């Protein structure tokens, strides 16, 4: 910053005096100024060209700003771990991932699912089935138990064991029904399908050594086994007789007295199966719990599954167990008819697939690895994916005596336990805010925001033109450049990062009009200040810049600090506001550095302006008068 000379003189003397004293210096400076503005006009032009090309590019590739759901309608929900829920970074990330998978099934164009600390924000702009979306996302338990109708190998030949619900010992030791389970099931993922003669019914020809069984825990074997044998026949027959509905798909699976779907004649089943399992993998949105579906397993296999017989609601908890050799999972069902009762009704059927019409509900898809008995399998389906499809090797279980054993390693056992415990989400979530905005209201909000912005911008433009005359064009040009760049950046962020702009963001931008204009005003006033001391306008334009830019940077840094802290320390709308305020402030710095001075210098150097500084709102310069 050049020292202002002549300050100690009386203002009246000052003009003449300083004019005399610094005549030569003035000329030198003017020359330097002309040269520097000659160079820097390129920076202004470059910035303008970049802005214009960026905008054209954005239009050409069809990028558009992504509107927040308050502007286009949609659903937003904010979740946090429920009180007392245990969670850590990893389980929260996992939760986000699971929610994302669920949302993907909804066909939302730009879902935004983010974790901000412990808070999970789900924004689904433009989603049409709003209620269903909220349900789908927030639901902790999307866990279904469905009978395996055709064994996996029938579809993909993969059919690897996924673990087994096993009523017997974890490792099978001392379990009379399970002579061969431990070493094979543990070590052998692809299993030994050929070991076992396969007496399957409708899926007949398929080998099924791979589906590990559900058994009771070892210690209860003695008590329960006799009961098993009874149950083999009795409950199943009751069911079959008691509710001979025509359509298995229409039955409620968790019906208290009869949670099991009454079987149809095989032919009917075949038709149902055909309908559900021959059309390729069932899409998540078509995954009706009451229909036959074809779903993928985590092992990559395909499973044709019957209507859900039970939901995750019937479970209370699940633990992993490790006996030193194998990992297994112990689910704990709830007490009562809707918990273990319902499960046992199903177990009775699946454990005896050849009894009565049981096979129509839960056909045999494998054999008990210990007894060689044919068993039906119950798939554990999480978010449309088969996590495990264990055979049921006993017809009745005590609620705390169930083991799913098989080919687990530690991770897969833990994952299954987590899934069983919380349904799909590893962390129990509580909705803090759920918001749905109808598309028409969104439109109105957007329209009012845009109208307010345009009016505000025009008023500012008119004012700066009125007050600063031609120099006002510099301010307007700067705003235009910022505007074009903003459009490009916002569209780019929306297109590539799914960052939507909300009303709060628009307000941030409208407010930033003021900030950008202020930078120009600070500069213009500085120029005026110096020009009024008798400098040529062209000189003043150069001299005023340094102190102006220093002020602008200081003030903008304060704004950036505010934007940055707000962005990192807050959630939701405040975050969006901070982001766009921050971007706008950076653009202000950019425009102030590259555009403001050269543009004003160019205007000031026009002969007409030189002759009449009032054209740029400046007083008549001393040196030029």
């Amino acid at each position, binding site marked *: 910053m050049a020292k202002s000379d002549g300050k100690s003189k009386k203002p009246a003397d000052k003009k003449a005096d300083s004019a005399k004293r610094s005549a030569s210096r003035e000329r030198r400076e003017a020359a330097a100024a002309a040269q520097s503005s000659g160079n820097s006009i390129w920076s202004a032009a470059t910035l303008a060209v970049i802005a214009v090309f960026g905008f054209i590019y954005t239009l050409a590739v069809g990028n558009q700003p992504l509107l927040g759901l308050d502007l286009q309608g949609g659903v937003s929900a*904010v979740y946090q771990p429920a009180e007392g829920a245990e969670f850590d970074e990893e389980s929260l990330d996992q939760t986000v991932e699971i929610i994302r998978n669920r949302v993907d099934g909804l066909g939302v164009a730009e879902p935004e699912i983010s974790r901000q600390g412990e808070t999970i924000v789900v924004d689904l702009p433009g989603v049409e089935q709003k209620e269903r979306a909220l349900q789908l996302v927030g639901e902790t338990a999307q866990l279904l138990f469905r009978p395996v109708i055709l064994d996996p190998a029938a579809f993909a030949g993969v059919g690897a064991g996924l673990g087994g619900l096993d009523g017997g010992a974890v490792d099978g030791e001392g379990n009379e029904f399970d002579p061969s389970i431990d070493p094979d099931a543990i070590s052998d993922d692809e299993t030994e399908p050929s070991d076992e003669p396969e007496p399957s019914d409708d899926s007949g020809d398929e080998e099924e050594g791979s589906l590990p069984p559900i058994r009771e825990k070892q210690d209860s074997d003695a008590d329960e086994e006799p009961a098993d044998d009874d149950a083999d026949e009795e409950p199943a027959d009751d069911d079959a007789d008691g509710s001979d509905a025509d359509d298995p798909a229409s039955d409620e699976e968790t019906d208290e007295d009869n949670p099991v779907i009454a079987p149809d004649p095989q032919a009917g089943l075949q038709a149902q199966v055909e309908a559900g399992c021959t059309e390729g993998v069932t899409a998540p949105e078509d995954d009706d719990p009451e229909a036959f579906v074809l779903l993928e397993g985590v092992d990559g296999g395909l499973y044709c599954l019957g209507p859900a017989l039970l939901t995750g609601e019937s479970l209370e908890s699940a633990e992993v167990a490790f006996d030193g050799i194998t990992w297994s999972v112990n689910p704990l069902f709830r007490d009562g008819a809707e918990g273990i009762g319902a499960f046992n009704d199903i177990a009775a059927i699946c454990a005896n697939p050849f009894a009565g019409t049981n096979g129509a509900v839960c056909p045999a898809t494998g054999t008990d690895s210990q007894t060689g008995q044919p068993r039906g399998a119950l798939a554990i389906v999480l978010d449309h994916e088969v996590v495990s499809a264990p055979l049921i090797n006993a017809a009745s279980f005590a609620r705390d005596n169930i083991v799913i054993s098989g080919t687990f390693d530690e991770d897969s056992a833990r994952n299954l336990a987590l899934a069983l415990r919380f349904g799909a989400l590893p962390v129990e979530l509580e909705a803090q805010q759920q918001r749905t905005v109808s*598309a028409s209201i969104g439109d109105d909000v957007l329209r*009012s925001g845009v*109208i*307010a912005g345009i009016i505000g911008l025009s008023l500012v433009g008119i004012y700066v033109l009125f007050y600063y005359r031609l120099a006002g064009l510099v301010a307007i040009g700067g705003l235009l450049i910022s505007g074009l760049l903003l459009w490009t950046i916002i569209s780019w962020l929306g297109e590539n990062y799914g960052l939507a702009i909300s009303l709060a963001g628009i*307000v941030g931008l409208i407010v930033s009009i003021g900030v950008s204009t202020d930078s120009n005003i600070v500069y213009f006033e500085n120029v005026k200040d110096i020009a009024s001391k008798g400098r040529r306008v062209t000189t003043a334009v150069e001299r005023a810049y340094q102190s102006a830019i220093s002020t602008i940077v200081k003030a903008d840094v*304060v704004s950036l600090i505010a*934007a940055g802290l707000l962005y990192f320390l807050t959630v939701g709308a405040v975050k969006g506001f901070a982001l766009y305020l921050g971007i706008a402030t950076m653009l202000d710095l950019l425009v102030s550095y590259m555009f403001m001075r050269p543009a004003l210098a160019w205007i000031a150097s026009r002969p007409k302006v030189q002759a009449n500084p009032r054209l740029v709102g400046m007083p008549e310069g001393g040196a030029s008068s």
Partner: protein
Amino acid sequence: MKSILKDLYHSRSTIDFVPLWAKSIPASVALMVISVLALVILGLKPSIEFEGGGIFEVSVPESVDVGQARDALPGSDNVRVQLVGDPDGGSFIRVQTGAELLENSTDIVEALAELGGVTTNDVSINEVGPTWGDQITSKAIRALVAFFFVVAIYLAWRLEWRMAAGALVAVVHDLLITAGIYSILRLEVSPATVIALLTIMGYSLYDTVVVYDKILENELDGNSRVKGYGDLVNRSMNQVLMRSINTTITTVLPVLSMLVVGALLLGGATLRDFSIALFIGLILGTYSSIFLAAPFLTWLKNRQPEEEAELELRERRAARRRAEAK
């Protein structure tokens, strides 16, 4: 009058701010005290985002009135029903319920959908759990404290600690009085209001920084005409006055248009929430930079022992010369 404007235009005004400060300081203090009293006694009126509850909106045919809407709603005791006009014809029913009614929200949505003759998908719903607002607030406060801290350090480094202190005093003044106005006028405080308050904070600082920067610049330039710090500040104020006025005008214009559009157009409720607080805050921000931050700084400066001030100034000048030499 005209000559004052002309002087202002040419940054030649010679307004003596010192006697004005004698009035503005007590006025500011009084306003702050009133605001604190209002906040303590009346408190703020939180929106449902802070209290928990639900807002349901649906557009309805013109024939529907509030009474009808009220009758249609199940359990309509703790329910506020408003009819909002829609410039496109027809109108809007806005229903606000307490958190305890959220269990019935499906009924409310269905009743409203029927009233408007639309599907439940066309009903806008905003349901908030009772603890969510506290968290937003505590996060905002945490951000605010962090902000004060960081900005104080930054300003102390780039300007000087007295100026950092003065800037923060001015910000607190602006925030407090804005909150006080919200409390007295019983305006609802929504998350939008919080954002607006944070913006005000940024603005107020921005404004003060510009003013202080001018003072510092004049101080460093040094000038034998200056008689004491008060005079220096006074002169600087006159120099930046026009900038302050112009900046205020150009920032208030967009906010004003938000206020007007928000008040006139449907869907402008949030916009209005933003702009009321912004409008009040911006005016206060300009006011406080001139009438509070400046005298506060002068007061702090005048308490500084002269030799120390002299020494400091010399160091700063040297530092600036070094910076310029680079």
